[in-house]
C-alpha cells in the first residue's frame, strides 16, 4: 500500500516538476524550432505512457495486494490484448518517428544559399575561417600548419589566399543567413555546440564534418565543446556573435586575409624583437590553448604576472618563478607542478634563441617587467 501511494506521488511529483522546474530550453536563436517541437511531441507521447504504466501498477498493487484468502487468476496470456498493445505501441512509435525523420531530412539538406564558414578545433580552443571574396574556402591540411599558418591553409592555393582566419577571437555570423559550418580538427575529437542554436556536430581529425543552421536573432552566445577532448575539455569554450549583415560585412572587410598575413610573416622572417617572436611562438606552438595572458584560469596557470611571482607547488613547497624555473617548466613540465593544476603539459624543446624569446614574452606580461 505504501508502495502504491509512493508510485502515485512519483507520477504527480514528476509532472509537477516537469511543468514548474526552472531548468528548461534556452531561448532559441536559430531556425531549428522544429527540433524543439519534436522534443515537446516526445514529452507528450512518452509522458502519457509513463503516467499510464505507473498508475496501472499503483492500482494493481492497491487492488491485488496480498490480504490473505485471495487467489490470483490463472491467465497464461491474452493474444487479443497483446496484439492491441503492440498495435498501439506501433502507432506511438510512428507518431514519434515520422515527423522526426521529416525534420531530420531538413538537417541533412543544406540550403543552396548557405554561407560556408570553417570551425577548426584544437586542444582547447576554436579558430574560424571565412572564405573571402571568392566565396570558396581554400584547400587546407594539417601538414601546412606552421608559423603564421595556424590552420594549415595551402599557400599555393589561390582560393586560400583570400580566406580570413580568425585565430583566437569570436565567431561572427550574419543574422538570418543560413550557414554551413565546415569542421576540422588538429588533434583529437571536439564538438561544436551553441545551446541556443540546438544543432551540434563533432570535429574529427583526418576528415571534414559539417552541419547547418540559420541564426535568427542577434546577440552573443557561448560555444562549448561536447566531445571529450582531454583534461581541458570542460574549459574549451568560445563565443559567437550574431550581427546584422551590414555590420558583419564591415567587420569582415577589416580583417586581414591569409595571403597578406602570410606575406607579412614571410617578409619579417623572425622579428628582431624577442617579445614579438616569443608571442608568435607561444601562439604557434599551442601554449595559448592552456595559458591565458589576461589572468583568466584555464588548463594551465595564467602567464599574466607569473614571472617573478611565488608559485606554490603540488607538494606544498613554494618556488620563485624566475627564469630557471620557467625554463625547467617548459622542458620538464611534470617536475614542478603548480598546486591546483594537473600534470598534463607535454615537454617542449626549443633552441636557445626561441627559449629566450619565449621567456622574454612571459617576462613582458608581468607588471614588474620594467625593472629587469
Amino acid at each position, binding site marked *: 500500500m505504501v*508502495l502504491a501511494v509512493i508510485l502515485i506521488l512519483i507520477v504527480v511529483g514528476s509532472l509537477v*516538476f516537469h511543468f514548474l522546474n526552472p531548468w*528548461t530550453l*534556452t531561448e532559441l536563436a536559430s531556425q531549428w524550432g522544429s527540433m524543439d517541437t*519534436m522534443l515537446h511531441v*516526445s514529452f507528450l507521447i*512518452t509522458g502519457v*505512457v*509513463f503516467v499510464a*504504466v505507473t498508475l*496501472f*501498477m499503483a492500482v*494493481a*498493487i492497491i487492488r*491485488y495486494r*496480498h490480504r490473505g484468502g485471495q487467489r*490470483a487468476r490463472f*491467465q*497464461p*496470456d*491474452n493474444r487479443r*490484448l497483446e496484439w492491441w498493445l503492440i498495435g498501439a*505501441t506501433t502507432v506511438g*512509435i510512428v507518431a*514519434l*518517428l515520422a515527423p522526426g*525523420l521529416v525534420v*531530420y531530412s531538413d538537417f*541533412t539538406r543544406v540550403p543552396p544559399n548557405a554561407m560556408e564558414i570553417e570551425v577548426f578545433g*584544437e586542444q582547447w580552443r576554436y579558430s574560424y575561417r571565412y572564405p573571402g571574396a571568392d566565396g570558396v574556402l581554400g584547400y587546407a591540411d*594539417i601538414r601546412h600548419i606552421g608559423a603564421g599558418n595556424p590552420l594549415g591553409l595551402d599557400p599555393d592555393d589561390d582560393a586560400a589566399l583570400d580566406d580570413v582566419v580568425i585565430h583566437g577571437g569570436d565567431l561572427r555570423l550574419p543574422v538570418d543567413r543560413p550557414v554551413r559550418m565546415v569542421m576540422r580538427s*588538429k*588533434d*583529437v*575529437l571536439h*564538438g561544436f*555546440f551553441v545551446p*541556443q542554436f*540546438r544543432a551540434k556536430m*563533432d570535429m*574529427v*581529425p*583526418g*576528415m571534414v564534418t559539417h552541419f547547418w543552421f540559420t541564426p535568427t536573432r542577434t546577440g552573443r552566445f557561448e560555444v*562549448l*565543446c*561536447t*566531445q571529450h*577532448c*582531454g*583534461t*581541458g*575539455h*570542460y574549459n574549451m569554450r568560445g563565443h559567437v556573435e550574431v550581427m546584422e549583415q551590414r555590420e558583419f560585412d564591415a567587420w569582415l572587410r577589416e580583417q586581414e586575409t591569409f595571403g597578406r598575413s602570410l606575406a607579412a610573416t614571410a617578409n619579417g622572417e623572425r622579428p628582431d624583437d624577442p617579445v614579438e617572436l616569443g608571442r608568435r611562438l607561444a601562439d604557434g*606552438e*599551442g601554449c595559448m590553448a592552456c595559458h591565458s595572458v589576461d589572468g583568466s584560469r584555464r588548463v594551465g596557470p595564467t602567464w599574466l604576472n607569473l614571472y617573478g611571482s611565488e608559485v606554490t607547488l603540488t607538494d606544498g613547497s613554494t618556488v620563485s618563478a624566475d627564469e630557471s624555473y620557467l625554463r625547467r617548466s617548459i622542458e620538464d613540465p611534470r617536475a614542478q607542478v603548480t598546486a*591546483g593544476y*594537473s*600534470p598534463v603539459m*607535454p615537454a617542449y624543446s626549443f633552441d636557445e634563441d626561441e627559449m629566450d624569446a619565449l621567456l622574454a614574452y612571459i617576462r613582458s606580461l608581468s607588471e614588474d617587467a620594467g625593472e629587469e
Partner: protein
Amino acid sequence: MAYVPSADAHAHGEPQSFVTKYIWSQDHKVIAIQYSLTAIAVGIVALVLSGLMRIQLGMPETDLVDASAYYQFMTLHGMIMVVYLLTALFLGGFGNYLIPLMVGARDMVFPYVNMLSYWFYLLSVLVLMASFFVPGGPTGAGWTLYPPQAITGGTPGAGWGILTMLVSLAIFIVAATMGGLNYVTTVLQARTRGMTLMRMPLTVWGIFIASIMALLAFPALFVAAVMMILDATLGTSFFMPAIIAMGREMPHEGGSPLLFQHLFWFFGHPEVYIVALPAFGLVSDLISTHARKNIFGYHMMVWAIVAIGVLSFFVWAHHMYVSGMNLSFGFFFAISTLVIAVPTAIKVYNWILTLWQADIHLTVPMLFAMGFIVTFVVGGLTGLFLGNVVVDIPLADTYFVVAHFHMVMGVAPILVVFGALYHWFPKVTGRMMNDTLGQLHFWITFLGTYIIFFPMHYLGIMGMPRRYYAYEDYEFIPQSAHDLNTFITYAALVVGAAQVLFLFNLFWSALHGRPSGGNPWRATSLEWQTPDTPPKHGNWGEKLPEVHRWAYDYNVPGVEQDFIPQTEPQPESGHSAGEERT
C-alpha cells in the same frame, strides 16, 4: 529434448580440501559466488569514484579532485560499472549459479573452462586496479576510450593507463568468452528430462540470449582494443590520422577515428542488452513468484527477448548521430532503434499485466522488481528521445544522456541485482536476509536514485554538457542549476552510504540470518526443489529431477496449493496446467 543420460552418471568426485572446494573450484555454485563477490568488490570501488566525482560537481570549492583525477574517476566508474560489475555479475554470477540449477544439470558442461573463466576475470580486475598505480595513473579517456584522445598527451593516463585498460579488457573478453561458451552449451545440451526450451524460466532465457550476444559482440571490442594497443605502441594508424597534438606532429597517417567508434558501439550497444536481458529475465521470475501468478504472455516474452537480442546488433550508430558520420545513416539507425522499442514495450506491458488480478506479496525482492519497472520505464522512454535522431541532436553529450543511461542501464539493472540477491540468497546460504534492513535499503536506493537522475534530464535539455570537470562562468547555466547539482550530490552521497546497509545485511545474514528452508518463496522452478539447501556438489543427489510443466504454475485452478513445482507430474486426466495449452 536435450536430456543427456551420461550427465547422470557423470560423477566428478566431490572435492575435499579447502583449496579444491573454494579456491580452484570447478563447481558452478562456488564459481558464481567468486564472480559475485569480486564484482561487488570492484563495484564498491566504482561507487566511491562516483561519490568523489559528485563532490567535485556539487561542491567544486572543496578542490578534492583535480581535472585529471576527475576524468580518470569518470572513466573507471563507467567501465567498471558496465563491464566489470554488471556484465560479470549477471553472466558470471547469476548465470553460473542459476543456469545448471534451473535447467536441472549437475554443473556447467565444461567445469574446468568455467574455473578458468573466473580466474581470467579476476586477473582482468587486478590489471584494471593496477592502473591506479602505474605512472600517470589510469586512463581518463572516458569509458568509450575514443581515439585519438585516448592515446595523446592531453588526456590523463595516455601512456600506461590506457594500455592497462586495453589489456584488462582483452583479458576480460577471454574470460567472458569461456563463460559464455559454457552457458550457451549448458542450456542447449545439459537440460534435464522434460525441460524443453519453452519450459525454461525467463531467467535462463535472458541469460542464454545475452550470452550468445556477448559471444558475438565482444570480439568487436577485442579487435578495437588490439588495434589501439598497436597504434599506441608500434605507431600503426588504424584509428590515428595525421594530427598535431600538443604542438607535436604524431607519427600517424590515414587512420580513422570513426572506425573505432563503429567497432566500439558494435560491441557497446549489444552490451547494453547483455546487461538488460538477464535483468529482464530475472525480474520476470521475481514478479511471477511474488505475485503468485504466472508470467503474462510467456511465449511473447521469450520472443521479445530473442527479437531484442537480434535487433540490438542493428542500432549501434545511434550513439554516433553527431559524430560526423554520413548523415544518411541517421535515417536507418533512427528507424531500427525505435523498432526495438516495440518488443521492449511488450515486456513492460506483460510485467504489469502479471500484477493484474494477482496476489501480490510486497516482499523485498518484489519491491525491487517494482522499483525496476518504474526506473526502466523512465529510462526506456527517454531512449525514444535519443534514438529519434533529430531529438538527439540537441541532447547528445548533455546531462540528458547521463540521466537516460543511468536510469535505463545503471539503476534499473542494479535494482534487479539487489532484488535477485535478496530472492536467491536463501538458496545460496540457507538463510534469509534481514527484512527490515532490506526494506530500508530499497526505499533509500529507489527513491534516492530517482531524485538523483530525474532532474538531470532537465539540465541536459538546458544544454549542460556532460563530462565537464567544472561549470564555472557559463552564462547560460543559472545559479539554480549549480544549486541543483549540489542537491544531487547530497542525494548521491546518501544513496552511496546506504549501500552499507546492503553489504552488512549480506554478510551478517550469511552467518546469522533466519534459516530459510529449501523453498522459502514457495516457488516452482527447479532450483527451489533441490534435495539440499544450499545444494551440494552435483546439485541433485542420486537422481536428476524430471520436469513435467513450465515454471509458472501459480494458483492453478482446482489445485489447493498456490504453486506447483516443475517436478510435479501432470495429473493423469482432467484439465492440465497452462503450459500444456500453449
